[in-house]
């Protein structure tokens, strides 16, 4: 009797380890596969040139990835610039000011936002955000644009990362002990003093974690961004210029024009690039998080 239980225990331990290794190996296999497929491009041109060249013209054999890197970064940064302040304030409102009834209504609503398929956000962007930029926002700055721009991509992406950002931030803010707020309030601090100096400071590691998770999602978001940001392979000079993020490049072109030499390899390299960007980003944010947490406890 005892024996079978021990065997079961060992079995569970081994098999869960095996499953873990399998899922981890997927990541490794992807990285290795992308690298192997990119090799023909490396043989054709050196990596420094690939990353810094501004001209993307596969027919003529020039593969500059800078426009795509810049497009990805521009769209992501714009979306974060919009989403971070809005989400922090929303989460603060929901946890500190809102009544229970409002909170119980809002949080499920936020989750519904997360469940809307990206393509619907894309349609919304094309029908609403793009004309809004073309007809109202750009003219304020005296700019003429079609509206299909990195700004449109950034706005759509910001709305798409609201749910994840808000729900994580709300979770984080809810973990702050009431006594800590009471300590600040009992000194005669107003609620806003307390939020600004105590709550947000205490919650900083969690808020950074929420931003990191949302950013990882933003980097990879494809279809909605592709529909609104113009997809012109040029480094955007302003937020009203069109851009061409890496996921859009892959989605638009994979399976087509494969007869062009090195084209497949170039797309594989762009996928590898996205992989590396996300990997490095996660690594850096992990380091920042560790330092922030160290600051609070050390």
């Amino acid at each position, binding site marked *: 009797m005892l024996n079978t239980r021990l065997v079961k225990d060992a079995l569970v331990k081994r098999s869960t380890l095996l499953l873990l290794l399998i899922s981890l190996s997927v990541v490794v296999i992807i990285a290795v596969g992308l690298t192997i497929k990119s090799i023909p491009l490396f043989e054709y041109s050196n990596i420094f040139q690939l990353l810094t060249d501004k001209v993307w013209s596969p027919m003529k054999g020039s593969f500059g990835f800078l426009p795509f890197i810049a497009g990805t970064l521009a769209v992501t940064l714009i979306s974060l610039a919009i989403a971070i302040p809005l989400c922090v304030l929303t989460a603060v409102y929901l946890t500190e000011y809102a009544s229970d009834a409002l909170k119980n209504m809002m949080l499920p609503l936020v989750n519904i936002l997360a469940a809307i398929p990206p393509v619907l956000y894309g349609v919304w962007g094309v029908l609403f955000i793009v004309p809004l930029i073309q007809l109202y926002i750009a003219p304020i700055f005296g700019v003429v644009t079609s509206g299909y721009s990195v700004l449109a991509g950034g706005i759509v992406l910001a709305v798409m990362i609201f749910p994840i950002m808000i729900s994580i931030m709300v979770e984080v803010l809810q973990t702050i002990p009431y*006594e800590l707020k009471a300590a600040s*309030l*009992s*000194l*005669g*601090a107003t609620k806003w003093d307390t939020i600004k100096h105590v709550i947000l400071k205490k919650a900083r590691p969690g808020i950074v974690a929420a931003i990191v998770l949302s950013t990882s999602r933003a980097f990879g978001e494809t279809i909605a961004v592709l529909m609104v940001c113009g997809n012109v392979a040029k480094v955007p000079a302003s937020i009203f210029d069109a851009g061409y993020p890496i996921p859009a490049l892959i989605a638009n072109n994979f399976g087509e024009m494969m007869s062009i030499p090195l084209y497949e390899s170039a797309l594989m390299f762009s996928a590898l690039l996205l992989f590396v960007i996300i990997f490095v980003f996660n690594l850096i944010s992990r380091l920042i998080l560790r330092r922030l947490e160290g600051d609070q406890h050390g």
Partner: protein
Amino acid sequence: MHTYPSIETKESSIINPLTDPHIEIKDLNVYIDGRHILKNINLALPNNSVTSIIGPSGCGKTTLLKTLNRLVDDTKGVEITGSVLVNGEDIYGKNAEVTHIRKKMGLLSQKPYPLPMSIYDNVAYGPRIHGTRSKKELDKIVEKQLRNVALWDEVKDRLGHSASGLSIGQQQRLCLARGLAVEPEIILGDESTSALDPLSTAKIEELLIELKKDYTIVLVTHILRQARRVSDYILFVYGGEVLEFGPTEQVLLNPQNEITKQYVKGFIS
């Protein structure tokens, strides 16, 4: 000076020994979600002395303490009637401004909750939000209050370090210094030594006894021996009502009320 009427409770009538109360509670009733937590409290707490609130768990001690600095306002579903006068001013009155009231009362909670900042900034936090900007003045306040709680010598070389690096006992003294830095008139303690080791407890008790020269102190405590060591007056709360209030020795050694008698002897807790 006003004269204050004697206190009537349902069980017994106690003559209020005080003539110069700092805090006066009149017909106070507190309901939370419809439950009657504090029932018809009438009390006068004296200046420059320590009053301990004792009573079994859930009797309303902490709620009573929280009504004094209006932290009870934050409780969901709370309803308060009656008045609490501090220096004759009703803190539940129409013109009462809650940050101003709280500034007058330092709160020392059960566990120390240092703010997520340096030792220096913890003490300087209160004065800063109330408008003190000058570095020199802040330096002076920080040193004075840290000396006040006998923490200065232990931390003077690491004022810039995070407050969470201090021991629990040191943190509690830091929290006291933080409260004193806004120059309150009243110190409220909510079982302030329950998380501390005996040595740190003794230090806090010593401090409180010393501080009563300048402050009116109200403590909630579970420990009768502590109440006896530090307090001048004892207030026994049971089921949301004040059953007995009087000088420490009288309440502990010669209680008038039958329930107080049983509690003090340890039959109910």
